[in-house]
């Protein structure tokens, strides 16, 4: 029982899981049940009042999901986590704890297109106002801060071009403004980047991508770093003020450095309802066990494919932070020394038509709107994920008309290169 620190791969296999007390089952059982029987009336009251540890109803918590939560919290170096139905649900639940109608949050302009839509339109109807900043210009975050700013949101490796954000620099801005830094770590996974080590206060993921890794289950997760003091100035009443929903409990006072994760569960998940199915939690957990192996292969393949494309005459440009010539190469070396991820874009000399033609000729790459699958994927963002944006916004977010996005899988790299070669060449 020495306080020795197990490595990342050990945590990926073991954290959060133990043999089932009742049956001895070693794999985590799928607790496919809506509800859990109380011992007696007093036990029920204690659970509802947040006074005892235990399960009530799967919309609030489930033992299979809890294993997933603890595992991702351990991999990210957080104090606690909450699994939800999707990455988008994670973002809603996080911001619900932080913003009141009329408040603002600052977001990096380079984001997953779905997040840009969610922030611009859906959140506007809640009175949560997004203010955009440029992740390549840290001062633009500083300029965007107002007294109503409640959070800053960035991606560690940003969609769609795989650019790397200077997390520490943005964290300094957040600290000065007295607001938490939220980092979407989906494209990096904690194997490549652990944002909490660089100053993130909250980490969110689409578990659908590299963590689950097999393209079979939608899910999302929120990790609490335990670093932010919610009590200052009454700025975050969901955490610092007595909650009428729970007989006047103050969450920060009661739960200390995991109060944010508890708020997300008992105020967010409970009342908004985006619960993750225990079956999906099981699938994602199984995926996480091989995350270190898969992620390294994804990165190694991506680098080989990016190098091939960079030397191809039909290719105008390649945006991959793992290439020494790339604008983000130094940031990649600092934040993601094991590899610059497996999602990147390249531009074709033939423009929009060449992009459409390439996608139609590829035989191994699947044309679909996802990333982080074992299989290699291709998409033309301008006509799909980013199609709701106007042309100027497309270019600003790295999804211009000539751009093709790849998500490199774990197949043999020679086969991926051969497929691209035939599709580009003919």
């Amino acid at each position: 029982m020495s306080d020795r620190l197990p490595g990342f791969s050990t945590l990926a296999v073991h954290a959060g899981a133990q043999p089932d007390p009742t049956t001895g089952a070693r794999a985590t059982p799928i607790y496919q049940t809506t509800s859990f029987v109380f011992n007696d009336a007093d036990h029920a009251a204690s659970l509802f009042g947040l006074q005892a540890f235990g399960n009530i109803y799967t919309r609030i918590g489930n033992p299979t999901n809890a294993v997933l939560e603890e595992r991702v919290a351990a991999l990210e170096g957080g104090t606690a986590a909450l699994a939800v139905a999707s990455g988008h649900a994670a973002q809603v639940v996080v911001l619900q704890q932080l913003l009141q109608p009329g408040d603002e949050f600052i977001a990096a302009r380079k984001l997953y297109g779905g997040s840009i839509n969610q922030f611009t339109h859906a959140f506007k109807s809640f009175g949560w106002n997004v203010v955009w900043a440029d992740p390549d210009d840290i001062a633009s975050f500083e300029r965007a801060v107002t007294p109503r700013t409640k959070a800053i949101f960035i991606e560690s490796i940003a969609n769609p071009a795989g650019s790397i954000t200077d997390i520490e620099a943005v964290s300094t801005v957040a600290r000065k403004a007295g607001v938490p830094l939220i980092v979407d770590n989906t494209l990096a996974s904690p194997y490549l980047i652990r944002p909490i080590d660089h100053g993130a206060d909250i980490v969110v993921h689409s578990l659908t991508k590299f963590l689950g890794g097999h393209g079979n289950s939608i899910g999302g997760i929120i990790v609490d770093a335990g670093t932010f003091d919610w009590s200052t100035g009454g700025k975050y009443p969901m955490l610092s003020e007595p909650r009428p929903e729970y007989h006047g409990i103050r969450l920060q006072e009661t739960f200390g450095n995991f109060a944010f994760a508890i708020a997300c569960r008992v105020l967010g998940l409970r009342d908004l309802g985006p619960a993750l199915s225990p079956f999906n939690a099981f699938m994602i957990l199984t995926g996480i066990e091989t995350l270190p192996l898969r992620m390294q292969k994804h990165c190694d393949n991506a680098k080989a494919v990016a190098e091939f494309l960079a030397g191809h005459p039909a290719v105008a440009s390649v945006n991959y932070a793992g290439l020494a010539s790339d604008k983000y190469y130094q940031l990649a070396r600092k934040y993601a020394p094991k590899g610059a991820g497996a999602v990147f874009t390249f531009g074709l000399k033939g423009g929009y038509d060449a992009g459409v033609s390439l996608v139609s000729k590829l035989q191994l790459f699947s044309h679909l709107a996802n990333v982080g699958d074992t299989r290699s994927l291709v998409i033309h963002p301008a006509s799909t994920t980013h199609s709701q944006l106007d042309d100027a916004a497309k270019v600003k977010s790295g999804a211009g008309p000539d751009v093709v996005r790849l998500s490199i899988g774990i197949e043999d790299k020679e086969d991926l290169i051969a497929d691209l070669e035939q599709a580009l060449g003919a």
Partner: protein
Amino acid sequence: MNHDSYPDNYIRGILNGVKSIAMVGASPVNVRPSYFAFKYLAQRGYDMIPVNPGHVGKELLGKPFVASLSDIGRPIDMIDIFRNSSHIMPVVEEALTLDPLPTVIWMQLGARDDAAALKAESVGIKVVMNRCPKIEYGRLSSEISWMGVNSRTLSSKRPPAPTQGMRLSLNRMSVGGGETAASDRAAKNKTEQS
């Protein structure tokens, strides 16, 4: 003792070792953290004594309130102080007059008084500050994992099926403090600023 970050073995040793706990500032109001920490520790088999001069003559879960530590009238292993940082010193000073001395003085989540800690440690008393014994017991036993909390422990052993009121094993393999070092650093910065 470095009070910014405690090794798991230090906390484990305390929670495995003590049997009686006097809780100063225990509240009979069932939505106060002191109430449910008291209840949880009693359910896990600790001999709990509620100390609160405002409630003498009443009981907390069947245990009579006493007004002060000196009114307990028998040796106690640990004093758990549920008071603000500014009210810690008098309690520690009173604890130091007890014979025999308690072996542990524990200050709740949010409470920290380094001068009081030093005083207690100078006579050999172990001190924990800004932690909750319920959370630490739940963490080291991994019972708290039910809420998605990072217990920072691992085990490949099959645990017994939990029943009401049983004591849980705290002897799991620790992942160590490093995994939540960010949280400890933040707490330290906060202390230094205040």
